[in-house]
C-alpha cells in the first residue's frame, strides 16, 4: 500500500509518499519565505500556489504515477485554519478525482510516529518542540498522554519572536543558535510549573535584557534557559512515566544544543536517546503519509463529508488504534 500525505498546518507545505512497510519514497517540503511572523492568509495562498507542482515533483521523486497511490492523508489539525483548509481541499480533490480513500490525521501524533519509524524507538517519551507546539507526551493505554506542555507560547515561537523583535531575521531559531555561540550567561526568568512550562515571560525579559546586554549573551542565555526548562520537564516526565527511551520531534529539535542537553540528561538516567533524521524532524509530508497508513491499517475510515479540519485538536484526544 502506498500513501501520499500532505502537510500544511503552518508556513511549510510538505508532500510525502510512503509505503506500507515504512519506506519513504519521497518527502519534499516547500518553505514559505518569511520576513516576519506567519500571516495565516498568506501562508494559505502559498500552499494553494505550490501544492500542484509539489505533488508532481514528489511523484516524480518517488518514481510512481498517481495511479499507484492507494491512500491520501492530510494534516487535519491542529494548525492555522486557512492553511489546514487549503490542504484539506487538495486532499479531497485528489481523493475524488482518483477515487482514493482520504484520511485527515493529527499533526502532533504524526511527529511522534515518524520518529518511532525512523529511529526504531519502541515506546518513547517524546519531547516535541516546534514553532507552534511544545509538548512532552508518552503512550499510556490507548493514547498519547500529555505530561508536560507550554502554558502559553511554544518554544520555537519564543525564539522566533525574540529574533524578530531584535530584527535578527527569520526564522529565528538557526540565527539565535549561531549568535549564542560565544555568549555568556545573563540572568533570565526560569519558569516551570509542575511539569508545564511558560515561555511568554522569558520572551519579554529577553527582549528587555537585549537593551543592556550584548546580543550574543542574550541569545546564549535565552537558549540555555528555555532549553533547560524543557529538559527539566522531560526529566520529570521520564521519572513519572518510567519510560526507557526519549525521542525528539519538531523543528526546534534540530538545534544542536537542545539535542546535546537532552542526550546528557538521558545519559544520567541510563535512558536511550533518539533523534530522527533532520528531514523528518520538522513539519513534513512523510509523517502525515505514515500516520495515514497506520490509521488506515488499524481500521480508521473517513467519509468525505467528515474530513473537516480541526484547528484545535489535542494530542490526547486521538485514539491510538495502531498500538
Amino acid at each position, binding site marked *: 500500500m502506498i500513501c501520499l500525505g500532505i502537510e500544511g498546518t503552518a508556513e511549510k507545505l510538505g508532500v510525502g509518499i510512503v509505503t506500507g512497510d515504512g519506506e519513504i519514497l519521497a518527502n519534499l517540503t516547500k518553505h514559505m519565505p518569511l520576513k516576519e511572523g506567519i500571516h495565516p492568509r498568506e501562508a494559505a495562498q502559498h500552499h494553494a500556489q505550490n501544492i500542484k507542482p509539489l505533488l508532481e515533483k514528489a511523484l516524480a521523486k518517488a518514481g510512481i504515477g498517481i495511479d499507484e497511490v492507494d491512500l491520501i492523508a492530510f494534516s487535519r489539525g*491542529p494548525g492555522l485554519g486557512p492553511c489546514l483548509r487549503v490542504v484539506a481541499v487538495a486532499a479531497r480533490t485528489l481523493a475524488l478525482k482518483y477515487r482514493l480513500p482520504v484520511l485527515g490525521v493529527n499533526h502532533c501524533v504524526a511527529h511522534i510516529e515518524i520518529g518511532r519509524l525512523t529511529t526504531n524507538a519502541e515506546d518513547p517519551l517524546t519531547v516535541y518542540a516546534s514553532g*507552534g*507546539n511544545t*509538548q512532552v507526551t508518552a503512550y*499510556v*493505554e490507548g*493514547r498519547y*498522554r*500529555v*505530561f508536560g*506542555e*507550554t*502554558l*502559553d*507560547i*511554544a518554544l520555537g515561537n519564543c525564539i522566533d519572536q525574540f529574533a524578530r523583535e531584535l530584527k535578527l531575521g527569520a526564522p529565528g531559531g538557526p540565527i539565535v543558535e549561531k549568535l549564542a555561540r560565544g555568549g555568556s*550567561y545573563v*540572568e533570565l526568568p*526560569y519558569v*516551570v*510549573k*509542575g*511539569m*508545564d512550562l511558560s515561555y511568554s515571560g522569558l520572551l519579554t525579559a529577553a527582549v528587555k535584557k537585549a537593551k543592556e546586554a550584548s546580543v550574543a549573551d542574550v541569545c546564549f542565555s535565552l537558549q*540555555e*534557559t528555555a532549553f*533547560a526548562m524543557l*529538559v*527539566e520537564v522531560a*526529566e*520529570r516526565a*521520564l*521519572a*513519572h512515566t518510567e519510560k526507557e527511551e526519549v525521542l525528539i520531534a519538531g523543528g526546534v529539535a534540530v538545534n544542536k544544543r537542545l539535542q*546535546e*542537553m*537532552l542526550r*546528557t*540528561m538521558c545519559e*544520567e538516567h541510563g535512558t536511550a536517546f533518539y533523534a530522527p533524521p533532520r528531514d523528518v524532524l520538522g513539519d513534513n509530508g512523510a509523517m502525515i503519509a505514515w500516520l495515514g497508513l497506520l490509521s488506515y491499517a488499524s481500521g480508521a475510515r473517513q467519509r468525505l463529508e467528515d474530513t473537516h479540519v480541526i484547528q*484545535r*485538536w*489535542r*494530542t*490526547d*484526544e486521538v485514539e491510538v488504534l495502531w498500538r
Partner: protein
Amino acid sequence: MEVIAKGAEANLYLEDNIVLKERIRKEYRIPEIDEALRSTRTKREAKLLSLARRAGVPTPVVLDVDNRSKCITMSYVDGEKVKYIVDTLSEEELNRLFSEIGSLAAKLHRANIIHGDLTTSNMLLSQGRVFFIDFGLGEVNPSLEAKGTDLLVFRKSVRSTHYRREKEILEAFFSGYRSEYPEGEEVIERMKRIEKRGRYVSAR
C-alpha cells in the same frame, strides 16, 4: 545511609527515621543556572514546608538546611504516594481522600502558599493523614494567577495520570477546595481562564 528514592531532581536518603534530601547537580544545564535553581529551591522548600505546616497542612518537619550541599534534613513520613493507591480505592474512599486533598490545597492557598507541583506523586498517605511534600517549585504569592496556575497543574496531572477516574477525583477535589476556601470559586474561575490561554484547548 539507605537511598530510598531517586527523583528527577533529588536523591533521598533514610537513616534513623530521618530523611536527607539532596538536590543533585545536573550536567545538562550550565553551572550558573544549575546553582541558582538548586539553591533557591532548597531554601524555598525548607521555608514552605514549615509555613505549610503552620497553615494546617501536614508536611515533614524540617530539621536542618544546608545550602552549600543543597541538602534538607527532615522527619521521615512513612506512607504511600497517593499516585499509587488511587486505583485501589472504592468510590467512597476516593471521594473522601480527594475532598481532603482539596481542602488541604485550599489551606495552602488561604495562607498564600503556592505548592508549584501539585500532583499525586507529591502527596503521601500515612496513617489516614495526607502529607504534602516537594515544595521546591513553590513560592509565597497572594495572586489569583499563581493560585489558579497551581490548580491547573493539579488538574492536568490528574488528566494525564488518573484518566480513568479523572471526573470523580476532580469533583471531590474542587468540592473540598471550595468548602475550605470562601474565595475558592474565584481561583477556580481563574484556573479556567489560564487554561484557555494555552495552545491546546479544544474549546474556547
